[in-house]
């Protein structure tokens, strides 16, 4: 189970970022999304979506035991989280995020919404 990334297909439209925040925060705010797009312009002119692989490094780093695995997906326990951001530092792909409105790290939970709106095949659900 993973999100397969075809980086050359990404167009930087950010629909994935929008839908992510709509489903997780009931808001439109790409800065609260749990994935990111790396854009390198003017040269070489590339987009690269970067998504969580559920590698569990965040859980290993969490001193509070606030990030736990269930069915292959790591979830943040908002009650237990103290906002120390050790997980953010530990994430090898920089896909755990901090936003000043949110007292806990923003993390992907494989809801697949991003793969549903992506029209170019840049993000594909693999079960």
């Amino acid at each position: 189970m993973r999100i397969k990334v075809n980086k050359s297909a990404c167009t930087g439209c950010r629909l994935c970022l929008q839908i992510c925040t709509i489903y997780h925060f009931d808001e439109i705010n790409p800065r609260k999304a749990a994935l990111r797009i790396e854009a390198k312009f003017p040269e070489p002119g590339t987009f690269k979506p970067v998504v969580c692989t559920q590698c569990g490094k965040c859980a290993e780093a969490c001193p509070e035991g606030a990030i736990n695995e269930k069915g292959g997906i790591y979830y943040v326990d908002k009650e237990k989280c103290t906002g120390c951001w050790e997980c953010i530092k530990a994430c090898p792909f920089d896909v755990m995020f901090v936003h000043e409105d949110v007292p806990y790290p923003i993390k992907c939970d494989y809801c697949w919404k991003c793969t549903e709106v992506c029209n170019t095949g840049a993000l594909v659900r693999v079960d």
Partner: protein
Amino acid sequence: MHGFAGQTIRINLKTKKINKSRLPEDLAREWLGARGMVAKILYDEVPRDADPLGPKNKLIIAPGVLTGTFVAAGSKCGFGAISPATNGHADSSVGGHLGPELKFAGYDLIVFEDISPEPVFLYIEDDKIELRSAEHLWGKGSIDTESQLKDELGEDFEIATIGPAGENGVVFSCITHDFGRNAGRCGVGAVMGSKRIKAIAVKGTKSLPVHDLKSLTKQTEAIIQRTKSHPNMAPWQKYGTALFVGWSNEQAVFPAKNFQSSYYEDWQTIDGEKLVEECVITDKACFGCWMNCGKYSKAKTKHGDIYIEGPEYETIALIGGSCAMTSIHDVTYANYLCDNLGMDTISGGSVVAFAMECYEKGIITKDDLEGRELRWGNIDDFEYVLRKIAYKEGIGKILAKGTKGAAEELGQNSIKFAMQQKGLESSGYESRWAPSMLLSFMTADIGAHHNRSWSITVDLELGRDKIKEKAPVVIYLQHIRPLYDMLSICRLFWGELDVNPEEYVESLNYVTGWNTTEEELMRISEKVWNLTRAHYIQRNGGPGRNHDIPPARYYEEEIPSGPAKGKRLTLEQINLMLDEYYAGRGWDNKGNPTAEILEDLGLDHVVEDLKKIGQLGEPLPNGIPKVRGYKLKPRAM
């Protein structure tokens, strides 16, 4: 208030005073935003005798109500000012990510007043707004400036810049964003340069308030799934607007050699197929758009590789066809040069094409070109002239005034082939065999730009030679298309993928909590149209008809080649179209708005303003038409 971010900023560049205030909801509802808000502010606040490049003009940045929301391509950001090219109201929009970012920072409107004593750029990071020094950026290219500011501030800033042309007051300077997207038309970049604003850099981290996000999401998700399989989706994704080069040529509306012909023999050297095959390195979409018509390209040049978003159809038409280029790499490089020097590719291409024809006819000679030549299709000659224009040197000093201003100075009847209207160069549709398209250009409020009404398919549907009964469709298109500029979203989902106006109304109501209708929105659009028309007449004198007659090439010369060989319009036919158009709008036969139409649209104050200068339309014997405009939308494919 929902949909809008809620705040406006007024910046006096001379005193450096920055005022923030709430956006009043009644104002937002009445004028919607972007083009609508721009029209009102310019009309109310800029003195009629203000120099477009002087301190009394204002530069407005206005994303619209749907910008940044979860709708199809809610990406646009409007710019507005009195145009140095037309001396009238101007609004020009850019896609990409700037508009949404401004909304996420909390702003719907920025108004710049007066002139900064030294170069500055506007820095916005949510509530933090600063004018920062741009001394180190002044003189640099648009693309180079964006790149440098991203290095200095961070990749996550959205940036709009001007190039040397904007700094130097070239009247067709643009504002560039996202490495090749432009608010291209009417010289808004020159106004920005006159105020000594080099760039705008924005980062926003706030959420956008939406009235009914659940319903909006459900609606847009359904539209996404529906349009994914639309037959137009795949070709648009692959070629973008360049898709239409071959089609346009086949229909005999593609400009060749400064609109001498409507058919370009060498079209296959510069069409969409060639572009994708040789130059495109990635597809690039605006915010929230799943059609990704943007093509990011790499071109081979003798100076090395260059990177730029484009060229789009219009660029290929005006630089490729109109300057008779035969290499897609040359067109792409010319696109890059226009962008980095800070000039609109439509007007820039058209001005160089005009100069090439002047050279062909001996109106411009080697003496004007430091002994050089100016040959059709020659990229070195193109680059030479373009650089001269950007820095207003030599022949560039004259050409920097645009085709109209240059023709007035060069004389020798060159005005006949200065392919513009009201001072704005025509977009890429040669219209001698497309009368409704010509009428669209003739009557467009900002000058000859296709975004107001694109009606080639109307001519195809109703008959290429037919003159009558097309004006009402042009009027309809002049209301519906600019409406998308007021909502500040891309109109291509309507035009190409059959997302209906009713669906946009539904989205708007979900976003705002209003209970508006298509009829109400179309009336706002018609009101704005009448306001910008009245504004133009007040600044440039009347009667309005004087400004609506096209260049003589359209009625004096027959098309010399291609499927439309031998076609032209007569001046009588052109005037007949105007008669029908004015009557259909509730204007008098001189092309001046009447009191009855202005009052009907709630523009009572404009009646007095036109009366004062003796340009209020005479009352129509049978009153104004109850229904103005006829809804017709044939598609190209």
